[in-house]
Structure formats: structure tokens, C-alpha cells
């Protein structure tokens, strides 16, 4: 009964922000019963914000839901409290509850994961966005965010008429600077003399920049006022505010993590979303769980980059169809190693 309730809610959520991409198929409410039975019990710990953030955490949730539907796994999800003081407790309670593997979504889990992983040597822990925990039972799922950002940066430069584009990061962390570095490099690759404005919405450990559409809107308005006509919003839930500003200023914006053309949930905003930088946390979660279910070896670090479509750009809306050849050419060059994308601005 509980499972059915979760699935119904999950599928509703997924349908609301369902992606056109085949990896994102909405889970049908009755799918679990038809799915092959697996004795895998997966525990997943979200970062602050939890399921329903329409961005990073939801991408992980989508991967988990797909695994529930297709692999028939059992799952348990936990989100930390608002201050994030119980991250370690959550991991521990999942491991203790016999869940294996336990997935920690977000680099912020790294510090609390270390002692927990040591206490539960027979449990495999997967951590997204961190490679600092060195233990045999900890596997890192990493992304080449700079490569995807490079391509949307190029798209921004190709579409910009003013020769001025903007980057808005949610919170000024090293991870978000990777996005900025890639975006700037991509824009300059296309137009060497382009102006790239960059701003962050909040300073850590204040992570409100990922959930403040109002801040996103004001910052975007400022950038549009000073000449930008395409803004890349790498700011989670704050991106909606950037899209609203783009609509008001008759300019363009770029989404992040999931295909925000599909997930924004507001048809009036769709025309301003040029493309989205895809960070396929869903793919990473699902593929890793699939390997786990098949008893395949999971490497200590898996990097999801352009080559394996772990990152990329979305085409929904058809706004980038005309520049697709240029983008694909750049993509091929990055995969071939002809272009090395910087990871720090």
C-alpha cells in the first residue's frame, strides 16, 4: 500500500516533468507489480531540498524510479533536515536497515560518509559528485559538467546578437565554478571577443541560491539590462526566476541538470528556454544499479561525460536545430581530445 502510494506520487511527479528523452520514461502506477523481482534493497539519501526540486535531486529520483520499475528493486529514500545536520545519521540508518547499495546524492555527503562506510564494510556506498572518499566500498559517480556547459556556452554565443551572455550560478562552490568555466570557454570558442558576465546567488554554506527564484529573477534582470541576451542558469530551483526574467526582457535562457523545457511546468516559459545542459544523474543512478543487480563490478570512479552521454545539451523546442551541426562538431572535438575544457574559471 505504501509502495503504491509512493509510486503514484512519483509517477505523477514524473509525468509533470516528464522528459522527451527515452531515459526518462514516466513510471506507470502499476509498473512495479509487473517488474521483474530483484532482491536488491536500495537506500537513497538526497541532499537538502529532497525529491521534488525539479533539478538535481529529482534527476536522482528519476533514476531510482526507473530502477524500481525495470529492475524491481525495493527502495527507501531519506532527505536531510533543513540545516543538513543529520546527513550522517541518515546514511547510517539506511545502511543499518540493510539497504545495499546506499546512494548519497551530492558532494556534501563526503565528510559524513567516510566514518559510516568504515562501519559498514559489507555495504556498497555510491556517492554522486565526489571522489575524495577513498574506501573499497565507496564508489564515485562523477560528471564532466564542464563539457556539457561548454556546448551550451557555444550555443549561447551562436544565438547571441549583442555579443554579451551571462552565467548565473546557484551557490559559489567549486562544483558550480566548473559549470562557469565550461560555459565561458564554450562561448569564447565560438566568439573570441564575447562578453561573459558571471554572478552567484548565494555564498556557501548558505545554499538558498538553489531555491530562490526571486534572486534568480533580479540577478537575471540586471544582466539583461547590462546587455546580455542569453543567460545560463546553473541554479537549480532558482532557474525559474531566470526564465521569467528572460520572458519579460524578450531574451533567452539556458536550463540545467534536467531538460528544463519539459520540467519547467509552465508553457509560457518554454519559448525562452534555448536549451538545457543535461547532467544525467538519472542515467548514472540507473546504470549503476543495473550493474549492481547483475553482479557486475562497479569501478571506484565512473565519469559520466560527453562520450557516454552522461552530460549533453537538450534539443526540446527545436531552438538549437539550426546550430546543431556546429555543436556536434565541437562535441566530437571534445570527445576526440582536440579541445580540452577547463574546469576552473
Amino acid at each position, binding site marked *: 500500500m505504501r509502495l503504491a502510494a509512493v509510486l503514484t506520487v512519483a509517477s505523477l511527479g514524473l509525468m509533470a516533468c516528464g522528459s522527451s528523452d527515452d531515459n526518462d520514461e514516466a513510471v506507470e502506477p502499476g509498473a512495479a507489480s509487473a517488474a521483474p523481482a530483484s532482491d536488491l534493497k536500495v537506500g537513497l539519501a538526497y541532499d537538502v531540498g529532497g525529491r521534488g526540486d525539479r533539478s538535481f535531486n529529482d534527476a536522482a529520483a528519476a533514476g531510482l524510479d526507473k530502477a524500481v520499475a525495470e529492475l524491481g528493486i525495493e527502495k527507501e529514500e531519506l532527505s536531510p533536515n533543513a540545516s543538513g*545536520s543529520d546527513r550522517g545519521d541518515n546514511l547510517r540508518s539506511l545502511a543499518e536497515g540493510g539497504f545495499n547499495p546506499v546512494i548519497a546524492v551530492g558532494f556534501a555527503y563526503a565528510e559524513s560518509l567516510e566514518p559510516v562506510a568504515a562501519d559498514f564494510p559489507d555495504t556498497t556506498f555510491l556517492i554522486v559528485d565526489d571522489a575524495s572518499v577513498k574506501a573499497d566500498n565507496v564508489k564515485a559517480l562523477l560528471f564532466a559538467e564542464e563539457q556539457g556547459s561548454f556546448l551550451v556556452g557555444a550555443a549561447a554565443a551562436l544565438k547571441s546578437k549583442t555579443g554579451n551572455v551571462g552565467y548565473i550560478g546557484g551557490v559559489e*562552490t567549486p562544483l558550480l565554478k566548473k559549470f562557469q568555466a565550461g560555459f565561458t570557454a564554450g562561448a569564447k570558442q565560438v566568439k573570441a571577443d564575447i562578453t561573459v558576465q558571471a554572478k552567484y546567488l548565494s555564498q*556557501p554554506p548558505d545554499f538558498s541560491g538553489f531555491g530562490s527564484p526571486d534572486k534568480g529573477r533580479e540577478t537575471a534582470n540586471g544582466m539583461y539590462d547590462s546587455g546580455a541576451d542569453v543567460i545560463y542558469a546553473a541554479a537549480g530551483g532558482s532557474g525559474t526566476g531566470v526564465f521569467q526574467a528572460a520572458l519579460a526582457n524578450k531574451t533567452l535562457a539556458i536550463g540545467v541538470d534536467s531538460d528544463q523545457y519539459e520540467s519547467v511546468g509552465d508553457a509560457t516559459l518554454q519559448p525562452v528556454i534555448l536549451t538545457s545542459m543535461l547532467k544525467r544523474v538519472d542515467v548514472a543512478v540507473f546504470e549503476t544499479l543495473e550493474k549492481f543487480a547483475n553482479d557486475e563490478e562497479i569501478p571506484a570512479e565512473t565519469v559520466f561525460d560527453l562520450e557516454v552521454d552522461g552530460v549533453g545539451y537538450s534539443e526540446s523546442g527545436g531552438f538549437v536545430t539550426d546550430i546543431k551541426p556546429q555543436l556536434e562538431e565541437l562535441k566530437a572535438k571534445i570527445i576526440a581530445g582536440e579541445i580540452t575544457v577547463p574546469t576552473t574559471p
Partner: protein
Amino acid sequence: MSLLTPERPEPAPTPPPTAAATSRFDLRRFGLAVAAPALAVVVALAVASIALLVSGSNPLTVYARMLEEGTTLRSALITVNNAVPLYLSGLAVALGFRMGLFNIGVEGQYQLAALLAAAAGAAVVLPGPLHLLFVVLVAMVVGAMWAGVAAVLKTTRGVSEVISTIMLNVIAGGIAAYLLSTYLQERVEGSNNSRTPRLDESARFPNLDPVLRAFGVEPPQGTRLGGFVLVAAVVGVVYWLLVSRSRFGFDLRATGLSPSASVASGVNAKRMTIVTMLMSGAIAGLVGLPQLVGSSYAYGLDFTSGLGFTGIGVALLGRGSPVGVAIGALLFAFLERSSATLQRIDVPTEIYVIMQGSIVLSVVVAYEAVRRIGVAQAERAVRRAVDPEVAA
């Protein structure tokens, strides 16, 4: 400001020398003092129950599960551990309240204090307890200095501390983020976190597991009772002595009750403001330490945030008394801990935030309501004494 003034319940009605009327009056006051928090809890439970019913859960089963899972040994230890920073934060705010000062800046004060204490502690080599003491002192001094900025602005330029502390929070956040991403950062291979170097063993606070074992309680694996609870207890006692048993405390409370009257009777209001803000800031500086010297040993992007704001709610609950603040902190930590329970039974975790909010709100309202009833009763009693005909 009447909401924030001290409420001292008469502990037990002392046998009055004369009339039974006085005794009944005391009993009534005692009843009123108990009535307020009880009323608040009932109202908060009612609000949370409505929220639960709307979201489709049975409030009674939810409360039962919260109690059941919240009272296991592990949960109890975690609750106490999480209550310690909330307690310190609540005390920092409460100290200001007693004088009518609203220190909303605890958030910025403890973040900056924890960062600089972490960096300073990692940079020096000192023997055992000295190292720990050094870290604690740095944190207290930084917290006090940051609060001192607001105090100086208030006494010299008349800037309301409400405004200045809020703004100083933002500035502290900016400074901390800048320092953490530049000078104070230790690069860790493969990490997306930035954090200060870890503190040496000598700067770490021992946990109380041996004490638990001495009492025959075996702490569950990986969960320990942080030693900082002792420091919090000491701070609570000092706070009580200072506020309730010292000349300074008398001036403080007098200034809170009536600034003009206390100035007229020779209290130096400016000095009081500065000293109180400095002390409030020093306590605020301790808020991040249970985590810093007790579990994480470094300040990083993942450092617990928001404790300063939660502390305001805890202080409102505690009514300025150290015991009240402790109860408030434990209650908040218990509710926070229940967020995991709520998720396990598929209840939206926001319920615990609703509970916290409605408890604070109803406590404030209940105390004001009870205070007015008390005043009305007192007036009636006086009238009865002066003019028996009115009462009849």
C-alpha cells in the same frame, strides 16, 4: 517588548502570614505559568494535526511513531547532540532578549567564528587541553567582535541592532565564503567540497561514551554523546548566575523592563548594550563548536547552517530562562530528529517544520494571553481590596 520580558513563576506558594486570599492568588499565578506552555503545545498539536489530516495521514499514528522512534537510545543521543548547538544559540538570543536587544545576527556570528576558529586551530600546534581551549577562545572572541560591530553602531549611531545584525549576517556569509574559497581552504583531491584543514587530535573534544558505559549504557555503533554538552551546561549555569544573581544581571533586566527608569537610576545604558551584545556574540561563537571540535573537525561547505535562526525560536520558547531554553532546544531537536521517522512512514517532512513554527507562535500568543489574564486578575484583586462594593 512585553512578550520578551522575564516571566518568573512562583515556585511554590509560600505560606502567607495573613489572608488565604494571597495564597489563592499565588496558586493562580502558578496555574497561569503552567497554563501558557500547555496551551501552546495543545494549539501546536492541533495545527499539526490539521496539516496531517489534510495530507491524508492519521495524526495519532504519526505521533505514536514519532514517540516510539524518537525515544530509542540512538535517537535520544542524536537529539541531545543536536540540541546542544540549538541551546547555545537560544541562550545567545535570550541574553539579548532580557535587555530588550534582538540579536538576529547569531547566524553570521557563529559561522564566522567557526570558520576562523577552525582555521586558527589547524594552524597552531599546542598541547592537549590548551589547543582545545585556544579554539574555543578564538570562536568566542570572533563571535563577540562580530556582534560588537552591531553594538557600536547602535550606541554611537543609533542604528537598530535588528537591522544591523541581519545585514552583518550577509556580510559574514560573504567574508566566510571568500576566505574559505581562498586562503583558508585545503584542497582535497577529488572533492567538490572546500574545507579548512582538519584539526589535530589535541583540539578535539572527547565524547562521553566512557561515562555512558560507566552507567551500563552501551552507545549504538557510530552514535556518540558529544562532550560539548558539558560546556553547554556550564554556559547555562554561568548565564543563570549572571542574569539572576548578579548586579549586572539586575541592571540588565531593569534596562529590559524600562530603559528610561534604569537610566534615571544610574545604569549606563550604552555600556550595558555593548557588554550584553559582546556576551551574546561570545555565546553565539560557541554554536558551531560542538560540530567543529566534536564531529567534523573542519569547517566546510557542508557545515550545518541555520542554527542561528532556529535559536531565535528556541529562545522565544525558553522565555529567557536557561532551563526553559534547554527544554526548547530539546523539543526542537526531537522534532528535527523525527523528520527521518516521518519520511519512513511517507509523511511530508515539512510537518516537523510546521510543528516547530506553530509551537513558537502559539507560545508567544499564549504567554501574551495568559499575561493579560494575570493582569486583569491582579487589577480585580486590587479593586476588591480597595473597594469591596465593586467586587460584590
